[in-house]
């Protein structure tokens, strides 16, 4: 006879997530009942309000750690707070980009090239569903790194993924490509989710538990069948590595980054990475730490290959979004270096890196949305040549983000790389240090190549222009630029805060 207990929930600790979900539900109601004309404004208001409120709620409860926010399913601790806060900040900046509706199709259901599509464009329809979809994704992302049982983890994974699949297909231009990439993302995402579920099943078989603490106890006790543990770790890793875009699970990244509306790419590239790496940190630091000799070598190999592969292939890219995609693959490798460090400085460094990389990524994609011709965004790198002569400010901001990706001093990226490689070296991984620095040097090559292209080549007269950014985009770019340089010049307060806050409760 199984006894059922009614769950006890710590609502104050769950409030940040619940606020975002509530905002999303209001958004759905607006879609259903509000007149079309007023939707854009009210949706934007609701979205921003709920994100800001959620951040406020998070700040309010930041010191109340608890392992049982929802019956062991959700653990609220310092690292979780930091990750959730990063996701919220990145989401807020991204929403400013989403607000520029120029990026999105007028009517998602209309067939590309059909009469219906032309009608919808003529009527100036707007897909305001993007706002609640974004909020749902944010809620999933916030749940993902604090979930401490595998079922909740899986639910969070799906909640964050499904809205992204839809968002990826809503591009206004090159719609076939956008829809194709969305479908691709969906199919491959489903495929990797299946791996993830298999992993959960094996781990349950190994430990008779789905909670991280239960599995941890089994790992420490060493009573289970190691084959199940092995398969469980491997399959779980596949699902997570897919989400962060590590080689060889990266193949979707360039296609989806290129096909999705740029604002969505920005949100996805920045926030999903935080969520997925957050979950990965928790799983490996909390659950499998004692079995490190099993998974660490394999993960080191993946990190090495990912860094090298992403950096090398990025050199050959001619499309700015694909280049940023491969660069994000390389960065996934750098971040994995933090995961495999398996020490406190690795944890701190990874959280710092995730935040600063996310901010620079949103900023960089924000600038991609500005370079356009009559047919929409221009992502062919050759046509970016001479941009610095026509729009020095936009080009300078982009150069700043690229320098941050390259890890040049006085940008946040340098501090991040320094911290993460040092942590890896501290844990004994000389290979990571050497490959990491080499890969960064290679990566710097193509970042600087773009800078040279923008500033030192003559502009091509083919109608490529930089549009005057809308107020929202301006805000997004300004915030990202300020954060990127401020954290390069004076990172100490944030680093200290992360150091004193970041910890996992088992």
């Amino acid at each position, binding site marked *: 006879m199984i006894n059922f207990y009614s769950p006890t929930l710590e609502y104050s600790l769950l409030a940040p997530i619940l606020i975002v979900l509530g905002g999303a539900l209001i958004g759905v109601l607006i879609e259903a009942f509000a007149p079309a004309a007023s939707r854009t404004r009210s949706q934007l208001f609701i979205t921003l309000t709920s994100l800001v409120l959620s951040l406020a709620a998070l700040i309010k409860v930041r010191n109340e750690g608890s392992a049982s926010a929802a019956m062991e399913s959700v653990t609220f601790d310092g690292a979780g707070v930091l990750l959730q806060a990063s996701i919220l900040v990145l989401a807020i900046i991204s929403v400013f980009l989403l607000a520029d509706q120029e990026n999105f199709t007028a009517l998602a259901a209309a067939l590309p090239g059909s009469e219906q599509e032309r009608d919808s464009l003529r009527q100036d329809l707007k897909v305001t569903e993007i706002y609640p979809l974004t909020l749902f994704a944010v809620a999933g992302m916030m749940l993902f790194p604090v979930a401490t049982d595998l079922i909740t983890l899986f639910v969070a994974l799906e909640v964050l993924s499904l809205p992204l699949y839809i968002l990826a297909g809503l591009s206004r231009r090159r719609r076939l490509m956008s829809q194709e990439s969305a*479908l691709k993302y969906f199919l491959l995402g489903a495929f990797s989710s299946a791996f993830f579920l298999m992993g959960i099943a094996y781990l349950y078989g190994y430990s008779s538990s789905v909670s991280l603490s239960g599995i941890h106890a089994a790992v420490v006790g060493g009573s289970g069948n190691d084959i199940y543990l092995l398969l469980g770790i491997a399959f779980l890793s596949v699902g997570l590595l897919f989400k962060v875009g590590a080689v060889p699970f990266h*193949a979707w990244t360039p296609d989806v980054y290129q096909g999705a509306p740029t604002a969505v790419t920005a949100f996805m590239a920045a926030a999903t990475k935080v969520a997925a790496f957050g979950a990965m940190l928790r799983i490996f630091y909390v659950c499998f730490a004692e079995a490190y000799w099993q*998974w660490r070598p394999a993960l080191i190999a993946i990190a090495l290959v990912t860094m090298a592969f992403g950096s090398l292939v990025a050199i050959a890219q001619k499309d700015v979004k694909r280049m940023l995609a491969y660069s994000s693959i390389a960065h996934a490798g750098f971040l994995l270096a933090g995961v495999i460090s398996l020490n406190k400085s690795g944890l701190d460094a990874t959280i710092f890196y995730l935040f600063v990389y996310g901010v620079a990524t949103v900023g960089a994609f924000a600038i991609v949305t500005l370079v356009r011709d009559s047919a929409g965004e221009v992502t062919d790198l050759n046509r970016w040549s001479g941009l610095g002569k026509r729009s020095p400010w936009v080009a300078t901001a982009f150069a700043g983000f690229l320098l941050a990706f390259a890890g040049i001093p006085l940008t946040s990226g340098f501090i991040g790389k320094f911290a993460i490689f040092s942590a890896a070296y501290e844990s004994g991984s000389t290979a990571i*240090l050497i490959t990491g*620095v080499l890969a960064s040097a290679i990566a710097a090559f193509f970042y600087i*190549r773009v800078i040279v292209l923008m500033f030192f080549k003559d502009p091509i007269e083919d109608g490529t222009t930089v549009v005057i950014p809308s107020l929202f985009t301006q805000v997004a770019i300004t915030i990202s630029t300020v954060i990127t340089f401020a954290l390069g010049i004076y990172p100490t307060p944030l680093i200290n805060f992360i150091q004193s806050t970041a910890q996992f409760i088992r």
Partner: protein
Amino acid sequence: MVTNNGIVYLIALPLIGSLLLLLLGRKADKWGHLLATALSASSFAVGLFQLSEMLSRETENRPVTQKLFNWISVGSFNVDASLLLDQLSICFVLLITGVGTLIHIYSISYMSHDKDRRRFFAYLNLFIAAMLLLVLGDSYLNLYVGWEGVGLASYLLIGFWNQKQAYATASKKAFVMNRIGDMGLSFAIMIAFASLGTVSFSGVKEQAHYASEATMTAIGVALLIAAVGKSAQFPLQAWLGDAMAGPTPVSALIHAATMVTAGVYLIVRSNFVFEAAPTAQLLVLIVGAITLMFGAIVGTAKDDIKKVLAASTMSQIGYMILGAGLGPAGYAFAIMHLLTHGFFKAGMFLGAGSVMHGMNDEVNMRKYGALRKFMPITFITFGLGYLAIIGVPPFAGFYSKDMIIETAFNAGGLKGILLGSTALLGAAITAFYMTRVMILTFTSPKRWDEDQHPHESPILMWAPMAILAIGSVTSGFLLSRGNALKHWLEPLFEEHGEHQELLAPIVVSGLTLLMVAIGVASAVIKYQLSDVDEVAPESVSTFTRFARRDLLQDDINEALFMRPGQAITSALVKIDERVVDGAVRGIGKIAIGSGAQLRKVQTGYVRSYAALILVGAVALIAAIWVVTQ
């Protein structure tokens, strides 16, 4: 250590100038260059003031620091953004701001026809600020900021005239080679941080006594790689010649007086690392000796006046690196040669610029000749620099180069004889190729077309040349009188024991002068006393042909690094795009979605991506399995 809050002005003044000029844009076009020059000059004035302050203090109180703010504070690891002004850095400060200001003045006239002159001056100021940060940082991390900063500013300056494709390519090569050097520096920093727990100069110096030799060797080699990249030393020398594509004042500032000497600074500054790592120190010597010969040989074969000067710079820095590798006995002479070289080489670059200015930007010396009559001031100033570089007493180069050669001989044993002879031979070749430049440009019969109208440059251009020429004449004597510079720098280095003398100083000087005389004489016979072809002769020895091609440096780089690198990249791209798909095609077509929309718009098929994931998953399981067993 004493705190001094005035150090920051050295950097702040030019930095403010560059920001103002960039931010104000076209509004500052009228007076931007004047402001930049004034700020550079005021930074020099601050430097002089600091020097006089420093002179008035006791020896042990001379170094001063200034903490700007707490930059990184990670647990026990603390890096302040702090500046350190000691006997060594003040030498560099005065060189950078002094020569820098002269080059600002020169550029006012040289760039007067360029509509983007303001931007050029903004970059110049930025460069000065970054270079000052490099020599004033009190830790490797602060130095690294300046290091990347001068890199950035130098690309901006080299690429300033980017109408021609060659300039863009030059920037690229300079970038890649410098990147390798920068990597060396970041390795050094991370190894120092991870194994010594500190990255400040004083911290590393203290730890150097306790750390294992292997650690210090690793740090030393990484630092050497950094120095080699920045200072265009063998095997990363290829970029310097190409970087000559930039405006000539830039070559004078960056590629003669300041940035390229950063490697020497780094090695001398890290003397405690190399003292604790004999292997790394030996490598320094080898690099210096090879490069001084390499540069000298390349210099004999070039017809482009700036490329000869570039090769010569490479060779002279080889001397400095050699000096720096000789340990405490050589540090002071390396720095002395660096300072005197700053005068005479910058002067000669400006002279070359003046010649080009009068000759419609012609750089081929075979199209020059007899310019002595048309450009007397340029001839005299260039000539004084020439006498200094080949080492005729009492000109500057004589003192500094002679001391390096002497110290090399005294290094002891076979090593000393080898190094000393190399340095001696290098002196002869230097005399040969520099005499060749003088003859081809100034004293041989004219070979230029009638539509050329060579003329002397305006005063704003020749005045800096004259000042530098005065330096080329006097600096060597002043710095070596009573071993002034040696005693000045001595407190920074740990001197151990007396060195034996292989040859008496007077013998070394005699030998050197003899070699120089041979070099000069052969050049006079070959070029002054016989006719010079207007185009480079084709039927020349294999050796000359190799030298003209920079001893095959580009071919070697291409064969060893570029081709394999490109091959790897394109192979990976192919794997990413095609091979995966090809491999999976046999498995069968998995029905996906509603066909029509999934035509091959992009290269990737979902099925191949999924297969890749599957392969990855299997590999992951296999990897974990193997480890577990």
